[in-house]
């Protein structure tokens, strides 16, 4: 099992013994052990890697991504971003390096797509520090936003309200927003969940291109094992908040590994063109054998 990335360069992320739980007010009594989303997780993500995170629901994928973006704070453990400890970094400093594309957002205020995408420039404007965060978007900001919207094919929706477009269009707008942050690391939580096939391909193409041309590190979580298989350099397979397997696609996408974690039978063959592992669910007669696999 390979735990470390390409040697030599500072890894984008070095995660050490990360432990996290969503605290609720019930925990104030301290009588019961809180439910841990992540337990002692250790891994790293290489600079310029496309890194996939997979695992069943509740395995901690979303929590991990949020922790990597400093949206959540861990109970114990350490996250280092290009060698700097996340804990000591200011929020806007993190945001200039890391952009997070969350699963779904709700917006009740009538902002347009353009305004939403431009919000990605906030961390950079903070640094320019006009009056502690007040100021206007400059031509550079507008250009970057425009470019990002064209990349993700939402430019034609520039003046539509973000609450007024379809889920897929909204998702693409949020990706454009993340791109506008000009991050070095892009974190995506189920980025293709609402997208039609053509847009799924487009997004993956964008990510690959940015990865190849600019060395953008991409970390994405997905239920779509094939997506992850086709595009990721390495994969982290989570189970119950811990690392079940971390390694290359070949090492992780294996039937017995997947069957243990997902508790169902899977078929793994090869993609006819790329030759990379391809996961398929069994046809109907085989499903009755699911009951055999109990853990």
């Amino acid at each position: 099992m390979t735990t470390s990335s390409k040697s030599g360069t500072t890894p984008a992320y070095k995660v050490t013994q990360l432990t996290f739980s969503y605290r609720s007010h019930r925990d104030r009594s301290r009588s019961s052990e809180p439910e841990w989303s992540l337990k002692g997780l250790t891994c790293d993500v290489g600079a310029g890697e496309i890194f996939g995170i997979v695992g069943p629901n509740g395995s901690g994928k979303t929590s991990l991504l949020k922790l990597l973006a400093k949206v959540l704070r861990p109970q114990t453990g350490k996250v280092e971003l290009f060698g700097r400890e996340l804990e000591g970094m200011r929020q806007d400093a993190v945001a200039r390096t890391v952009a997070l594309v969350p699963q779904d957002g709700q917006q009740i205020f009538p902002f347009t797509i353009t305004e939403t995408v431009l919000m990605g420039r906030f961390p950079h404007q903070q640094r320019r520090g006009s009056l502690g965060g007040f100021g206007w978007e400059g031509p550079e900001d507008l250009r970057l936003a425009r470019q990002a919207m064209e990349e993700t094919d939402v430019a034609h929706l520039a003046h539509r309200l973000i609450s007024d477009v379809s889920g897929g269009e909204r998702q693409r707008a949020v990706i454009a927003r993340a791109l506008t942050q000009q991050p070095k690391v892009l974190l995506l939580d189920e980025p293709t969940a609402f997208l039609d096939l053509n847009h799924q391909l487009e997004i993956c193409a964008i990510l690959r291109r940015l990865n190849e041309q600019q060395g953008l590190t991409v970390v994405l979580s997905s239920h779509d094992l094939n997506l992850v298989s086709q595009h990721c350099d390495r994969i982290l397979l989570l189970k119950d908040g811990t690392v079940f397997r971390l390694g290359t696609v070949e090492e992780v996408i294996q039937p017995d590994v997947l069957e243990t974690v997902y508790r169902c039978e899977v078929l793994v063959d090869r993609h006819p063109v790329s030759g990379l592992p391809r996961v398929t669910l069994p046809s109907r007669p085989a499903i009755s054998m699911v009951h055999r696999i109990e853990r």
Partner: protein
Amino acid sequence: MGILGGQRRFEGSGEGALPHGDVGTRVAAAEGTPRAEQSVLTSRRWVTTMLTLAGASLLVMIASLRFGTEEIGFVDSARILFGALRYGETGIDSLGPSSVILLQVRLPRVLLGFMVGSCLAAVGVGLQALLRNPLADPYVLGISSGAALGAAVAMLVGFGKTVLALSAISFCAFLGGLSSLIVVYRIALSYGHLPIHTLLLAGVILNAIFSALIMFITSTMNPNRSFGMMSWLMGTLAAPDYPALIVLTVYLFVGGLILFMQTRALNILTLGEESARSLGVEVERVKKTVFFTSALLSGAVVSVSGLIGFVGMVIPHAVRMMIGPDHRLLLPASALVGGIFLLAADTAARTLLAPAEIPVGVITALAGGPFFIYLLMSRKGGLAR
């Protein structure tokens, strides 16, 4: 509503693509087209809008000076005002009766009314953003009912000392508001974070408790005196003296400025706290700043003028419908519109049934309510359109 340079927000109708243009381009809205190209907020649009509203504010103030128990024409008003400024004659003795009325009663009241309306609207904007709730108003956090309770206790006990240019009732009201602020904060604070749903709940509960206490005081007070107390609670804009007015102006202005500095972060905050954090917003700091500033501002306003409803909840909505949700413009614009609105309402309140006065909260609700319904119906519904 084709005002403010033709920038309006409309519901997207979903067919076809708009012509590609520079994101910063402004296209004037053709009459009747269901969709107008909306530009990102530029400094130019900000300045234009604010200047227009400032001009309107000035006009309304000047007009309000005219009306009252006697009409003081514009020429006379100008003469009195310039005379006062030039010769420094603001002392009462040296002026004729109209001058006294204008300078000592009407002008301070006009200024106070504008400031109270401004402040209520600005706080409304801040709280609607903070709580991500379109029903939020300055009274939702329970600070105002704490202030009202402080006032009620002062009236019950007959506490009569003036403190720091504030009347006894105002002073006790402010203390009540402060106490309420501390209680709400302590209840809501959790591991150094300020969860907004807890904040909202704490506010609602405190409102209920304090209202009950006020009702209790009303019921046990001698009925001859409780009338006065109920009248105070209904909202009252009495002519302050200039020292008090100056203190209040500085206080409200500083608070307003602090709120204004948060507006860009407030925009991002509307995405949700986690997304805002991922975009670099220090969410807890912004929340606490907005909370404390809003509470201190609304507490002060209630201490001075009782509970004037409607302005803080509805003006932000109306202004947002007209100029968009970008808080960098929404906040100051709502402040000016709120000031104009309350000033107009107060002018009506003190002239319609002269020499008697109607409580200004009655006018704000009766005038604003139907207008807002009209706005809602012409836009076919709520916040996100």
